[in-house]
């Protein structure tokens, strides 16, 4: 009995390497194959990344710049305690031309399992999104798979995002602003904006805040108590967070006999931070009209990403021989970033005196930016 047991133990040890190799081989094959299918899902992600970056490019590369405009030019109140309230509206005005009206899909990430219409609209055009098909491929042959019973490709067909139809690139916002005089012709301004709007079946949540400080430089070089010409330095910082769900609840969901995206809940998110340094050259025409020109540098960091989870389940009837788990789940599906420093310059006009003033401003910073502000002085400050 003992001899027999020893014999079996020896045999077991002798062949254990073979059993181990078979097990490892089995596991490796399975892991590789799941990885192969996962790579196909990753290809959607990479395509999506390149597509969303292209779709939102005009918005994401300009919104931060426009958000950091509309700061007041003109004479700075000398007195500490001067308090004013403003409503500032600003928007980039981006010309739509042949170069940015459509996205050429051959310039996006390419993959054998994705077929897309050659052209699809950019964000601000009035065209409808082009067709796109995602095919499941056999990892070993890289050929499309079909449903053996019907001959249908194991595919998901949907349309890319429609343009929002403005036909001109705009990044509009209206924001309240409070400005406080600190004395010595120095003023601190703060802005805050929390709101949500519905847009093209989707929803946009925008929140932004920031501030600026401006100081009269020319006072140190002039003895004139009330000069017509002044030079101000403005340093400003703005940041914002925008969440956008394109095409409503249908965004990146495709459910058919072969795929299910149940549980997917995705939003595109966009964050910007901008820092700016500008010099304002102001000329007071009379007590009612003031003109100015301004110029400097503005830096923007713009991050496009996604919030939520993307879930994809492949009908296991078609890949069950090689994959145990046919569910794939991704957080932070998309991510792209733009860092840019550009020269900014423009001019403005201030109208009014006393309690209420209106200001229009034009700035070129990467694109055209127009701003309009209404200002009411609440307190004149200490003498």
């Amino acid at each position: 009995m003992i001899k027999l047991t020893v014999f079996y133990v020896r045999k077991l040890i002798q062949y254990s390497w073979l059993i181990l190799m078979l097990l490892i081989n089995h596991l490796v094959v399975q892991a590789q194959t799941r990885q192969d299918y996962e790579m196909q899902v990753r290809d959607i992600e990479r395509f999506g990344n390149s597509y969303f970056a292209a779709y939102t490019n005009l918005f994401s590369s300009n919104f931060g710049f426009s958000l950091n405009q509309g700061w007041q030019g003109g004479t700075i109140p000398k007195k500490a305690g001067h308090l004013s309230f403003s409503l500032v509206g600003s928007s980039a005005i981006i010309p739509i031309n042949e170069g940015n009206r459509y996205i050429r899909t051959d310039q996006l990430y390419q993959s054998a399992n994705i077929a897309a219409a050659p052209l699809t609209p950019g964000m601000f055009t009035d065209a409808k999104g082009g067709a796109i098909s995602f095919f499941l491929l056999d990892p070993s042959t890289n050929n499309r798979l079909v449903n053996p019973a019907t001959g249908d490709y194991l595919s998901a067909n949907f349309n890319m995002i429609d343009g929002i139809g403005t036909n001109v690139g705009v990044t509009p916002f209206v924001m309240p602003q409070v400005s406080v005089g600190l004395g010595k012709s120095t003023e601190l301004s703060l802005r805050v904006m929390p709101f949500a709007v519905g847009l093209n079946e989707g929803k946009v949540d925008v929140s932004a805040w920031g501030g600026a400080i401006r100081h009269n430089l020319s006072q140190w070089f002039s003895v004139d108590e009330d000069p017509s010409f002044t030079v101000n330095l403005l340093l400003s910082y703005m940041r914002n967070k925008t969440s956008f769900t394109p095409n409503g609840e249908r965004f990146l969901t495709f459910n058919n006999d072969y795929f299910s995206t149940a549980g997917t809940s995705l939003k595109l998110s966009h964050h910007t931070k901008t820092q700016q340094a500008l010099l304002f050259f102001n000329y007071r025409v009379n007590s009612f009209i003031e003109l100015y020109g301004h110029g400097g540098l503005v830096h923007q960091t713009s991050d496009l990403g996604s919030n939520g989870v993307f879930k994809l389940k492949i009908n296991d009837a078609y890949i069950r021989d090689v994959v145990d788990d046919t569910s794939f789940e991704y957080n932070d599906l998309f991510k792209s970033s733009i860092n840019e420093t550009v020269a900014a310059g423009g001019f403005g006009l201030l109208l009014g005196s006393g309690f209420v003033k209106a200001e229009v401003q034009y700035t070129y910073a990467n694109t055209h930016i127009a701003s309009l502000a209404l200002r009411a002085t609440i307190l004149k400050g200490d003498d």
Partner: protein
Amino acid sequence: MHKAFTILFVGLLFMSCERDKVCSLMDYIYTFPEQTAGEVAYRKIYANENDFTKGEHGIKSDSLSENQIVLPAGRESIPFIDIRYPDGTNSWSNQAELGRLAQKMIESTGCKATFSYTDYAVLKSTINSSPTYLHLTLHDQDQDGGEKMWLIDRIYDEDKVDVTERPEWQCVRALTFTFYKGGKGARVKMNAPTDGNACGFFEELFGEKSEVFATYSLEGQDQKELRITVPAVSDALKEQLTFQVLASDYDQISISLTNSSSQIGYATLIPSNHD
């Protein structure tokens, strides 16, 4: 003056409304090098893969501008280019590469997008799909699209002895293949013997059914390996569904295959409507 402003306003309004409406349909204008007109045997563009497969609604160049094809395209259009040379070489399996090769110019006010192929040598080297794609699916070079059913006519062993009537080859011999027009990954329909005697490894493929769909492609450097791809099948069956194409023509295709006893045979396939 007031009237002039009114006319201007209405005009601008009309223009903006017009711009909203246009370009739901665009003209995709494909321009080809001059040499192609003289050298190609067939040149049509289809608005989508389905039309390309069936050979329906194909657009060819008109007599006035023979190097240009104008395809009316909607948002659903993913165009397919069908170019065939007299030797049967074609563009079928290289659509993505063809798409990337074109220089594009958009003129959205006129709702036009131009796709220009300027380098003939590069274009020709991209149009390199095997003539076997045509042979498998069409009856001649001018047929626009469709499918073609093939029967196994004769089977020979490695010594070139005719083994067609031998019992071990009967179930294989009863298989039929219907290839649909398309490039890499096009559909193929396989039919098993109707008496329920699907043989050996093909039982895994057919189960209770007598007909299954799969996809096919021609692989390898010389595109001589005919691979039929079915989801969720064993490696053994995948191997059995890979054939070497020895020769092909519209009326006959020779392939190597194996039976359930792993014997290698050489089969000649003929179209089902063959005399």
